[in-house]
């Protein structure tokens, strides 16, 4: 039998976006003057020549079935101009240059159960990762965590209650594909991997696993006469980095794979320079299907932020102003030795001053 005829790929790479862009946006490309926010989820951008484009933004579940997708497209055709885009946080944006379409569009979306909002000083959709649905190394299910939290934060998405934008992320392992955030809910492993020695020999390239460990805790070893690996449990920081290249290094565990919450990752250069997120809470049970403990912490932090921050202060700015001791006080979260940095460059995170809050 002849080899099947294979089609050569067309290496077209990234396609041109102008072909899919609303004509008013194409025409005014680079010529926008300012924008206004008539209501949560709705913006109007005004071009220098007076042209206007309305944007209506709706939250989605990110992973869309074709029914939902077609439903959204039908709405876009009927109530907007047939042009859409998705934001970095998987919200869908509908465009129209006809103001009269805006309110009907908003109403329709709400009517159909989509969340309209996420603009300005709201809690934006939580950006997240694959989880149990697809990844090979996840400790939790990101989609489920996000659905559970957004249910509770719905009013914060559809209203402008916050001092500034709140960008939340969640990730299903410590690799953290979801990135930093004002608040990040991430998996934190609390025990070294258990090694399935029977499998190591077959599936793991031992030298590269050894090289992957950030703290050099893995040594090649013979176990029951077979080549395997062993972990120095005193050194191991339970990061799980050895698991992707070597799945027998089982880091996931129904008890010891927990959640941790980090705050203050701000990537914008607005006002201050970009900042890293910081650990505030760990030991949170990984508790499907609703993860209520994690949501409770997030809500508590948001409540204190809403209460305590000045307008335009992002979470990191608020905490830096009131000081970390006060943060732990107002949120009631425990301060532990685990908050004290001991990674490279830890000194920079210690208090080398008498600036103290009593």
């Amino acid at each position, binding site marked *: 039998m002849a080899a099947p005829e294979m089609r050569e*790929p*067309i*290496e*077209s*790479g*990234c396609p041109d*976006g102008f072909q*899919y*862009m609303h004509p008013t*946006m*194409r025409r005014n490309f680079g010529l926008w003057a*300012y*924008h206004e926010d008539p209501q949560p989820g709705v913006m109007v951008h005004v071009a220098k020549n007076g042209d206007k*484009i309305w944007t209506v933004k709706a*939250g*989605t*579940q990110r*992973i*869309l079935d*074709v*029914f939902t*997708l*077609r439903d959204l*497209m039908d709405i876009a055709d009927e109530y907007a101009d047939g*042009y*859409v*885009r*998705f934001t*970095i946080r*998987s919200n869908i944006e509908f*465009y129209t240059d006809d103001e009269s379409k805006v309110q009907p569009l908003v109403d329709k979306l709400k009517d159909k159960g*989509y*969340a309209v909002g996420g603009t300005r000083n709201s809690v934006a959709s939580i950006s997240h990762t694959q989880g*149990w649905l697809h*990844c090979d190394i*996840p400790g939790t*299910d990101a989609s489920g965590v996000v659905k*559970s939290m*957004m*249910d509770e934060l*719905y009013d914060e998405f559809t209203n402008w209650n916050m001092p500034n934008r709140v960008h939340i992320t969640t990730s299903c392992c*410590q690799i953290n594909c979801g*990135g930093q955030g004002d608040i990040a809910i991430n998996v934190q492993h609390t025990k070294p991997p258990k090694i399935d020695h029977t499998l190591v020999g077959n599936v793991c390239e031992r030298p*590269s696993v050894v*090289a992957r460990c950030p703290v050099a805790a893995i040594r090649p070893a013979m176990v029951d006469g077979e080549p395997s690996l062993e972990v120095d449990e005193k050194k191991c920081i339970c*990061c799980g980095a050895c698991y992707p290249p070597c799945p027998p290094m089982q880091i*996931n565990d*129904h008890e010891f*794979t927990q959640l941790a919450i980090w705050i203050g990752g701000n*990537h*914008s*250069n*607005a006002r*201050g320079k*970009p900042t890293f997120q910081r650990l505030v809470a760990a030991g949170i049970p990984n508790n*499907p*299907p*609703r993860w209520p403990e994690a949501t409770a912490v997030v809500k508590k932090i948001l409540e204190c932020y809403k209460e305590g921050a000045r*307008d335009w202060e992002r979470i990191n700015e608020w905490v830096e102003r009131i000081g970390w001791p006060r943060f732990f006080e107002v949120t009631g979260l425990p301060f532990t030795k685990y908050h004290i940095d001991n*990674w490279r460059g830890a000194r920079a995170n210690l208090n080398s001053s008498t600036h103290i809050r009593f």
Partner: protein
Amino acid sequence: MADIKKYPTPMLDVLEDGPWPSFISGFKNLRDNHPDSRINNVINGLMGQLEHSYETKMGYWKGGTISVFGYGGGIIPRFSEVGDSFPESKEFHTLRVQPTPGNYYTTDMMRQLAESWEKYGSGLQTFHGQTGNIMFIGADNDSFQHFFDEINDYGWDLGGAGPCVRTAMSCVGAARCEQSNCNEHAIHRHLVNNFTDDVHRPALPYKFKFKVSGCPNDCQNAIERADFAVIGTWRDHKKIDQDAWKAFVDEKGVDYVMDNVISRCHSKSLSLGEDNSLIADESNCVRSMHCMNVVPKAISPGDDKGVTILCGGKRTLKIGDLMGTVLVPFMKLETTEDYEKIVELAEEIIDFWAENGLEHERTGEMIERIGLVNFLEGIGVDPDPNMIARPRNVSYVRTDGWDEAAEEWFNRKREEKAAG
């Protein structure tokens, strides 16, 4: 619609409650109502496995190696470890497809993609993954090539997976944003499409990501997430429409303006004139965006637009999170030559890193290991004080080339001056 034996999903069912759109409802809709029984079955299997994960708190996918003919990457292969229990979805690969810069779609194009996908795949897709790809989640061994062939024919190509140049991202930018200082779309495509070979055939030390934001608000989190972050900025003075400004002060009152604008300028370079005009000490403005974010009607970026380029951002693995660091404080991007220059810089960086990066080492980690200066010398970029937050504070450095280095600086300054 097939009449299938549904796996029970008591835990997942709970996720249908509540006001936020439910991915589980979407799954069920596909399982129960899609006309194609293949899809009903695949989703049934998927839900069965996911319910099992919820019950046991463990994931059950493993990787493998597959790719479309002619490419080495672009697909995340998934095989079930519990395929015996849930055979319908035991192969469940994801195709990563590059969207347009800024993620624009017409409804027609969306429908066309949906049609192709339900012909071959699970009917589930993500707009978008965190690296910016459309993720078509759930193809099996037999179907992924066909799906790719079909959409590739009408203009879509795979993104990256593995140690390669990855799919890029850019913000909505100039298409709909008054803060934009550059043509994000052109930058994005010039860069990533110069490296299609490196996107499709993974052969670099590790992944390499481009991200483009039109202004320092950095709506793409480029500094934190990109090996090569391009961020629009301006070099002259920002533009102040004093009439619009005064109208703003009148509307909001002086206290509000002091509390929310003047006193919040990071570089303390703003003050309010007697007549309520806005006085800006331009030599101190660091382009922190705040004033124009609050009052976009009155304050805008300047006219001498261009970009800042930062290098080396990434997440935790394996030395801790790294932000990108300034490599080019300012670059004009107007002419063809300008665009060639930015592409050349990217090439220099990727070449140097390909040669000097360790296996599984990102650019940021390499810079950390060899030091920024060695990196600059490797790619032929001159040192500039905007690259640093502060000069060194430890005297442990060998300075015997000081005089030459000083001479070079003075020469460069002379030339800049001569050039105007």
